[in-house]
């Protein structure tokens, strides 16, 4: 098999005393899309980081073009044609799009930076991605999906032979996912091997020819995707049968918990009104950039409201900052857990109690009670970490998300706004989280779920608002909650109809 550009020989990785990956023997063939499946913390990202030189293997070797390497570093790996789009982005916020695309591989002309060519090349590559981003825009101003496009562009300007995608679709809407998949297939045709991690099994089924399934750091199976359906994948990955992902729908009460009227933020959202009832899970659907996050942040006092009134449990509230909101029992889970959600160098305990710290204070902070609480969440959510004292930055993406959820729940909010609550979470745990959300609603809390995953919106929510260009484009309930209707409203192909009447 001379056409295997990359072979892994008994690769393994330890962090201190903990082995997180072992016995990986694998050939990666040109032109294939190889999926890597596993629960949160199974070692998927770790494997890809070994291949791309971010981490050095504790045992084993990587063979490229017949040469065996004990270790790679990111620069060497890139020279060998290995490009990675990490799960957590790696962009310099103060630099522009094109400067980031060419970071570390700047184009030069007579020793000087060739800004013009870099800009033009970036524009060309972005255009091939159907993305009309300005190469000169600063990264800090971009949305998460746009940042990802920058990461993709960065790979494309290189002649990579292996492209590594670690959960690339978690931040994209279905439409953007399609664009990405087109890119992946084009790469494949050029003989590029693609390594792909996703917790969305449908995508895996769609895109990958082969699958490597990891459980607790060990490979359990290497198989062809063609013979597997999604259920079988989930079973192999979790090691047990998974029944019914979404819980039964609930019985919202009549009492309104959160009422928003005429909410506007200059240039972002316009005249948004809705009621959220106790016991209800209300979905907020729409394209990325449609203003869903902005609505939630405006309610939290994180954005300057230009107009609008907010009532909670029938009382008018003036929420000017998140701490006002928390005091009133309103909590918000941001879509950006790295940049807005968790303090990466804090340990699990410190993160979980950051909002609720006052509850643990009797004169001084009671570290014992904090710890007990954290132990409770670790068990309840099955959070995998070396220790409760590990910095959350060392946790796998999915486990970080669980810590973030725990952080929010610890103030026992009566109203929750969850922005992409299952981002990066494996199927088994997703099911647990959906059940948890439903249970919260059944206890009489009100839950607003913002999600780019249509399936999640459809499966979980009692009622759905579709947001388009900063306005509520439609309100759907019961049978109206289906993929087609939501997409039509979200894309603007159908306009709002008078209350409940279908056109």
């Amino acid at each position: 098999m001379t056409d295997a550009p990359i072979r892994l020989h008994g690769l393994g990785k330890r962090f201190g005393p903990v082995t997180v990956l072992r016995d990986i023997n694998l050939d990666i063939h040109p032109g294939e899309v190889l999926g890597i499946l596993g629960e949160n913390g199974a070692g998927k990202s770790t494997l890809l980081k070994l291949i791309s030189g971010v981490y050095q293997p504790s045992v084993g070797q990587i063979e490229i073009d017949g040469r065996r390497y004990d270790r790679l570093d990111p620069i060497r790996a890139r020279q060998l044609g290995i490009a990675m789009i990490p799960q957590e982005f790696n962009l310099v916020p103060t630099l522009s799009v094109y400067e980031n695309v060419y970071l570390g591989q700047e184009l030069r002309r007579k020793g000087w930076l060739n800004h013009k060519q870099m800009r033009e090349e970036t524009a060309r590559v972005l255009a091939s991605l159907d993305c009309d981003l300005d190469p000169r825009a600063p990264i800090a101003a971009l949305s998460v999906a746009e940042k990802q496009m920058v990461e993709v562009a960065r790979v494309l300007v290189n002649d990579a032979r292996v492209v590594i995608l670690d959960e690339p679709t978690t931040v994209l809407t279905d439409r953007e996912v399609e664009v990405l998949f087109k890119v992946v297939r084009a790469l494949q045709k050029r003989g590029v091997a693609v390594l792909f991690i996703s917790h969305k099994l449908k995508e895996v089924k769609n895109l990958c020819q082969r699958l490597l399934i990891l459980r607790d750091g060990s490979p359990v199976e290497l198989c062809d995707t063609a013979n597997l359906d999604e259920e079988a994948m989930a079973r192999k990955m979790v090691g047990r049968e998974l029944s019914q992902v979404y819980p039964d729908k609930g019985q919202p009460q009549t009492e309104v918990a959160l009422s928003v009227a005429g909410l506007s933020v200059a240039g972002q959202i316009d005249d948004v009104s809705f009621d959220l009832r106790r016991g209800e899970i209300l979905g907020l659907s729409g394209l990325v950039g449609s203003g869903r996050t902005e609505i939630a942040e405006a309610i939290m006092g994180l954005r300057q409201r230009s107009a609008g009134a907010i009532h909670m449990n029938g009382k008018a509230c003036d929420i000017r900052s998140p701490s006002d909101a928390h005091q009133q029992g309103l909590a918000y889970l941001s879509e950006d857990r790295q940049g807005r959600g968790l303090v990466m160098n804090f340990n699990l305990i410190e993160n979980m109690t950051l909002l609720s710290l006052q509850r643990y204070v009797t004169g001084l902070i009671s570290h014992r009670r904090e710890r007990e609480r954290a132990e409770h969440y670790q068990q309840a959510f099955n959070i995998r970490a070396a220790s409760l004292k590990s910095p959350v930055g060392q946790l796998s993406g999915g486990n970080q998300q669980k810590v973030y959820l725990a952080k929010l729940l610890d103030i026992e909010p009566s109203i929750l706004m969850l922005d992409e609550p299952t981002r990066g979470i494996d199927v088994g745990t997703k099911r647990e989280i959906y059940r948890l959300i439903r249970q919260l609603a059944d206890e009489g809390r009100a839950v607003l779920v913002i999600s780019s995953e249509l399936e999640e919106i459809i499966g979980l929510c009692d009622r759905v608002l579709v947001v388009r260009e900063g306005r509520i484009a439609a309100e759907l309930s019961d049978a109206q909650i289906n993929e087609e209707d939501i997409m039509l409203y979200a894309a603007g192909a159908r306009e709002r109809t008078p209350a409940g009447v279908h056109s």
Partner: protein
Amino acid sequence: MTATQTFSQRLVNAVRRLPLDMTIVAPLLALIVLLIASSLASEYFLNTRNLTNILRQVSYTGIIAIGVTFVIIGGGIDLSVGSMVALVGVLLLFVLNAVGDPVLAVMVGMSAALVVGALFGLVNGLLVTRGRIAAFIATLATMSIYRSLALYLTDAGEVVSNNDIFPDIGGGYWLGIPIPVWAFFALALVGHVLLFHTPYGRHLCAVGSNEQVARYSGIRVRTVVLLSFIIAGVCVGLAAIMLSSRLNSISPSDAGVLYELDAIAAVVIGGTSLAGGRGSIWGTVIGALILGIINNMLNLLGVSPYLQGLVKGAVILIAVLMQYKRSQ
């Protein structure tokens, strides 16, 4: 081979089990090594008078370094502390000399020093939080302003106290240990409790680590940062009390010169990250002690005073390199 491994393993585990923050283990080991080396190098080193002297010397910058630790953990820096010592000291002596009754004068003077220190810290903090000026620049400016004010108010001349009991504070002893040293350790204890056992300390670390996360978590970021500068100011006030009462005078041109650098050095040697977000008060205490002992040893060994800066610089570099290695 395996025997030594299990021994070192056990040692590591034993150290881990101690109620210590891992970040201060390295500076602590360095301090112990330094103590042993110093006592071997010079017979005078372990002399009680010598040790007392080191502790007293260390306490002035040490007190300031504790305040600066808070600022640095919050993601800022304070370069003005050295000038602030001079200005607060001058104002303190003015107040002291203006009040007739000596006991009352000392009480009013000391309170004034702490309040004035807090006020100068407040000015720094407001420039940073409201004025949105980078802490480095803002405190570089106030460093110049505070020193200049001290010189102007005194016409660059030394201010001498005419109070009889004032010198008993900085020059006094309790249980054989100088009062400034007591103040230093008491402050360290308070600082430690504030940093690790109160919501404020936790919030400060969060702000220093990631301001956005802190904001989304409902933490009043600006207030937290402002307070860190005020804490530094109060610490400067305390240092000014100890220093001026020890000398029973203050020189506006010499007092506190380069203290900001000694303080920052102590913080860094103690393992607090200049990037903010985490740190340790005991680390800072150890850092200050290390600097003090090195100074003392160089003097005892008769090393040229011109070379002492070189040694201090080398120690800072080694400390930072060790931290960098550890974080890898």
